[in-house]
C-alpha cells in the first residue's frame, strides 16, 4: 500500500498526503477550538463569546464506529460540522483520509457521507427517488452508476418495501426521512460516515435498522462517527466512545473498558415529579453541596435522577436525596438500584454537570 502511495506522488502531492493519512487514521481531530459570538438586543447590543470547542482531539479508525457522547450544547454538532467542512475552526485542524478540512475541503467532501438532521434537508415537493437522484448528481455520480447506487442503498435500507422512493418527502414519517437521510450519506459509498444523532426521535424498528446498517458499514472497513446522547445506543453500536463536555474529550475508550471505571459503585435511580427547574436545582445542590455525582435525565416518560455511590455510602446518599428533594419540593415516585451503565461513567467523569451552554 505504501508503494502505491509513493507511486501517486508523481501525480499529486495532495493524493500522497491522503494515502499517508489512510495509513495513520481515517479521521483525526487535533486541538479544535471554536467560539461563537452570541449577540442580543437591538439598541443596546450585548455580545458574549461562547466556546463550543476547547482543544478537542480524537481519532477514528477505518472499520470502527466511534460515538461522540455528550449532553446538548457540549459541542457534538459543531465537531461534525467542522469535519464536514461546513464550519471552519478558529484554531486546530482536522483530517479526513489525510486531507485537511481547512486547506483541502473539496477533497474531504469527496470522501465523506453526512447526515445532519433527520427532519429536514430534502426537497419537500420531490419524491424520495428524485431527491436521491438530485443529490447523487450533485455529489458527482451519474448515469448507470448513480442508478445502481440508488438501487443498492434502497435495498440496504428497505426504502422499496416502505414506498419511500415514490413518496413525496413532505408525506414521509420520521423513520422514512431518517432512512432516506442515511441513504443519501451512503450514496457515493464514502470511506467516512459522519452522522449527527441519526436515530433521534425515531420509532424502534427504524432506529434498529439504522444501527444495523452502521455496524455493517464498519464491518466493510468504513470509519463511522456518530454523535448521540443515547447511552444505550452507544453501548450497542459503538466500538469506542468519547465523552465530550465543555468542548473537549473528557474520557475515551470502549464502552466495556469505560464501564470498568465505575464497577465498584452502584447507580441509585430516583424517578421524580416536579418542576423542571427544581429538578435541576436539586441535582446541582447534591453535586455542589455534598459532592454527590448526580445528573437528571429522561427515563421513558419520567425524569430521573441518577446518583453514583459506593455500596458503603448508599444509605447516606439516599438520605441526602430524600432530604434535599423535600427542600426543593420535588416528589420521589420511584427508586431502584442498578448496575452502572455508560451514562454513569459520564456522570462520574464530569461530576454530573456536563452541560456547557454552548450552541
Amino acid at each position: 500500500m505504501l508503494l502505491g502511495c509513493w507511486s501517486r506522488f508523481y501525480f499529486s502531492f495532495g493524493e500522497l498526503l491522503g494515502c499517508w493519512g489512510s495509513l495513520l487514521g481515517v479521521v483525526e481531530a487535533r486541538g479544535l477550538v471554536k467560539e461563537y459570538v452570541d449577540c442580543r438586543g437591538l439598541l443596546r447590543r450585548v455580545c458574549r463569546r461562547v466556546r463550543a470547542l476547547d482543544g478537542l482531539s480524537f481519532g477514528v479508525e477505518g472499520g470502527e464506529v466511534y460515538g461522540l457522547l455528550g449532553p446538548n450544547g457540549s459541542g457534538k454538532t459543531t465537531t461534525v460540522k467542522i469535519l464536514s467542512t461546513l464550519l471552519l475552526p478558529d484554531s486546530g485542524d482536522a483530517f479526513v483520509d489525510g486531507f485537511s478540512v481547512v486547506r483541502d475541503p473539496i477533497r474531504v467532501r469527496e470522501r465523506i457521507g453526512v447526515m445532519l438532521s433527520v427532519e429536514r434537508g430534502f426537497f419537500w415537493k420531490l419524491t424520495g427517488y428524485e431527491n436521491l437522484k438530485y443529490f447523487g448528481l450533485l455529489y458527482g455520480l451519474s448515469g448507470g452508476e448513480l442508478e445502481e447506487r440508488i438501487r443498492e442503498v434502497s435495498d440496504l435500507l428497505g426504502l422499496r418495501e416502505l414506498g419511500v422512493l415514490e413518496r413525496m418527502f413532505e408525506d414521509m414519517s420520521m423513520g422514512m426521512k431518517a432512512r432516506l437521510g442515511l441513504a443519501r450519506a451512503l450514496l457515493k459509498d464514502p470511506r467516512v460516515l459522519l452522522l449527527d444523532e441519526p436515530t433521534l426521535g425515531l420509532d424502534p424498528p427504524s432506529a434498529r435498522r439504522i444501527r444495523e446498517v452502521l455496524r455493517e458499514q464498519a464491518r466493510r472497513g468504513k470509519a463511522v462517527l456518530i454523535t448521540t446522547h443515547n447511552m444505550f445506543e452507544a453501548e450497542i453500536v459503538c466500538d469506542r466512545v468519547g465523552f465530550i463536555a465543555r468542548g473537549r474529550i473528557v474520557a475515551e475508550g470502549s464502552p466495556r473498558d469505560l464501564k470498568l471505571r465505575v464497577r465498584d459503585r452502584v447507580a441509585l435511580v430516583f424517578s421524580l415529579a416536579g418542576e423542571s427547574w427544581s429538578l435541576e436545582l436539586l441535582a446541582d445542590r447534591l453535586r455542589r453541596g455534598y459532592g454527590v455525582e448526580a445528573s437528571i435525565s429522561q427515563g421513558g416518560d419520567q425524569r430521573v435522577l441518577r446518583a453514583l455511590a459506593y455500596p458503603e455510602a448508599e444509605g447516606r446518599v439516599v438520605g441526602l436525596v430524600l432530604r434535599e428533594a423535600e427542600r426543593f419540593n420535588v416528589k420521589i415516585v420511584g427508586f431502584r438500584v442498578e448496575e452502572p451503565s455508560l451514562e454513569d461513567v459520564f456522570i462520574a467523569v464530569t461530576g454530573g454537570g456536563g452541560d456547557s451552554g454552548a450552541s
Partner: protein
Amino acid sequence: MIAGLVKAELLLRYWWFKNNKSFLAVSLLWPYVMVVTVLALGLAYGSLEVYKARLGVVDPLVYLFSASAVAFTTVNVIDYTVSVATWHRWIGTLQYVSLAPVRLGVYVVVSGLASSLLSAGITWASVAPAIAILSGPEGLARFAILALAVVAGMIPLVAIGCIAAMATLALKEEGNVIGFLMPLLLLLSGVFYPVEVLPWVLRLMSNLTPSYYVVEASKIVNALNVEAGFKVYLVIYALALLAVLYNLLGFYFAVWAESRVKSRGVIE
C-alpha cells in the same frame, strides 16, 4: 463535475414544476397579468399614441409584451440566484448542497443560471402565442433574437446575483435583498420609463445595469433595419464588458464570503 451540477439543477427545477402544477400555471399567466396592469395604468394617464412616440417603438403592444418578458426574465436571474442561498437555508438543504465538491460560489452561479434559463423558457413560451397573434412570424423571429440577448445578459447578471446571495449569507440575515433590488433594477432597465427622464445618478447606474442593455436591444429589434443591426452589436459588446467586470468582482467576493460564512457557522 459542472455538467453534473447543471443537470442536477435543471432536473430539480423540472421536478419542482412537475410536482407543483399550480406554480407552473401562475408562471405561465403572470406576463399577461403584468401587461394588462401596465397597460391599464398607462391608458389612465394618456393614449397609446403618446406612449409610442415617447418610447419610439412601432407597435407599443408587442413592445410591451416582449419588453416585459425580457425585463422580467433578466431581473429574475438575480432573483433566482440570490434566492438559491435563502431558499436552501429555509428548507434545510443548504448544508447538503454545500457538501458538493465545488466552491459554494460556483454552486450558487450554476444553480441560479439553470433556474433562470428554465424560468425564462417558461416565460417565453407563455408570451410567444400573444406575439404570434399580434405581429405574426416576423414578430416571433424578432422575439427569438431578443431571447438570445437575454441569455447574453444573464452572464453579468448572475454574477451580481452571486454577490448578493453570498452577501445575504455572510451577513447572516434573511433580509429581503430582492425586495430592494427588483424595483430598482426594473427602474434602471428603462422598460417602463425612458432612462433619459431619470436623474443623472440613476442614468449613470442604468449604464452599469445589464438589463438596461437587454431592454435597449428589445427596442432596436422592434425597429429592425441595417442601422439597428449595428446597434445590436454595440449592446452585445457592452454586455460582454459588464460580464467580465461583474464576474471578476463576483469571483473574489464569493471566495471571501465563503470563508466568512464558514467561520460564522451560517450553513445550517
